């Protein structure tokens, strides 16, 4: 198997998204430095570098907080969907800011001719048995390595090469990295800094992110429990045709199986897997645009009739048989081979 590397497919939306991101980072850093410099001007070069360490570190932390909030927010409220569109560039930029944070840390040691001290801190093995005094820089370094791995594999080349399933598992390591970063701050900066702002921001940000993920997860579980089986058969009941929004979908789930998105386009009804072939995005939360099912994440499109992407694209979705019995739409949870025509016309 081989995968061809294609350059990033730039478009106006991506350029605007990235422009806003870079402007936001520049504005945050400038504001932080001006305010902190004004409040307590640095007395020497290490102090000045220390300001940069804090500015870039807090910036990367806030960026990761926003990145991790986008997914569940988009699930809970569709108005946040545009933020998902270029989230990978957001993640790569967060890694770059974290890398600058690390380079300032190295600089801080170098200007004091004390770089070996950093090595000594990281290899002070007895300190790894402590809680307060744990080498917090090692925790940050592990988080940075995870961010590097994720940024390095963020391109579509790796998504195709690793398969969307494995790629998504890999990129769920961001949750662990975020937890490590919170502990990096709690065991490091929070131990020196007596202002209540640090623990408040740290705990507040983590509670918001964790709360959003837990709430979105609970809502998803409810969706799965709601699906009924038609009496006397293995088919799943979706409801009357009118219960499926026109040019939209209802999502059903077979116990132990993947979710199925049942779409209606006027009087045509078809069922496809809820997993987009691109990045396993939730197709059932998308719409039918120009006659094609359109993924809400990156606008990948598929025909309702057979789950095939319109030419020249070649992606195909698993489809499912549908029927109308006693006025109710039902779907057979046995998947058909990708690209099998299975949609029906009702009424």
């Amino acid at each position, binding site marked *: 198997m081989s995968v061809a590397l294609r350059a990033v497919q730039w478009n106006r939306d991506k350029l605007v998204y990235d422009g806003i991101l870079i402007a936001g980072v520049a504005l945050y850093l400038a504001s932080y430095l001006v305010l902190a410099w004004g409040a307590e001007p640095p007395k*020497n070069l*290490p*102090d000045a570098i*220390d300001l940069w360490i804090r500015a870039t570190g807090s910036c990367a932390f806030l960026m990761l907080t926003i990145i991790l909030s986008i997914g569940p927010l988009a699930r809970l409220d569709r108005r946040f969907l545009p933020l998902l569109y270029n989230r990978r560039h957001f993640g790569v930029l967060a890694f770059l800011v974290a890398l600058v944070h690390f380079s300032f840390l190295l600089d801080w*040691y170098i200007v*004091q*001719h*004390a770089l070996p*001290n950093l090595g000594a801190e990281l290899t002070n093995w007895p300190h790894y048995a402590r*809680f*307060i005094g744990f080498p917090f820089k090692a925790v940050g370094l592990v988080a940075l390595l995870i961010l590097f791995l994720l940024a390095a594999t963020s391109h579509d080349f790796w998504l195709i090469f690793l398969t969307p*399933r494995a790629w*998504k*598992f890999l990129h*769920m390591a961001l*949750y*662990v990295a975020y*937890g490590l970063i*919170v*502990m990096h701050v*709690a*065991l490091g900066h*929070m*131990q*020196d800094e*007596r202002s209540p702002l640090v*623990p408040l921001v*740290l*705990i507040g940000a*983590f*509670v918001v992110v*964790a709360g959003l*993920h*837990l709430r979105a*997860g609970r809502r*998803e*579980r409810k969706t799965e429990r709601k699906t009924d089986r038609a009496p006397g058969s293995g088919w799943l009941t979706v409801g009357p045709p009118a219960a499926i929004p026109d040019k939209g979908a209802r999502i059903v789930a077979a116990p*132990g*199986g*993947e*979710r199925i998105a049942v779409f209606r386009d006027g009087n045509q009804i078809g069922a496809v897997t809820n*997993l987009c072939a691109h990045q*396993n995005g*939730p197709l059932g939360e998308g719409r039918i645009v120009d006659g094609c099912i359109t993924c809400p994440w990156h606008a990948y499109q598929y025909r309702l009739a057979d789950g095939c992407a319109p030419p020249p694209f070649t992606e195909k979705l698993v489809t499912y048989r549908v029927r109308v019995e006693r006025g109710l739409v039902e779907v057979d949870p046995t998947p058909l081979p990708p690209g099998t025509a299975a949609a029906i016309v009702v009424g």
Partner: protein
Amino acid sequence: MTRAHRSLHRLLWPILAIAVVLGVALALWLRPPPEPGQTRAIPLEQLG
């Protein structure tokens, strides 16, 4: 997300939330009192 991703997600977040909240609370509870005139620069004697 596939069913397997959702299962991992549902397992990971409660564990992460409890571990991190406990870790931060403990770090806050156990942090030593501030020393007067504390500085972040490396002490001269450590610079060799």
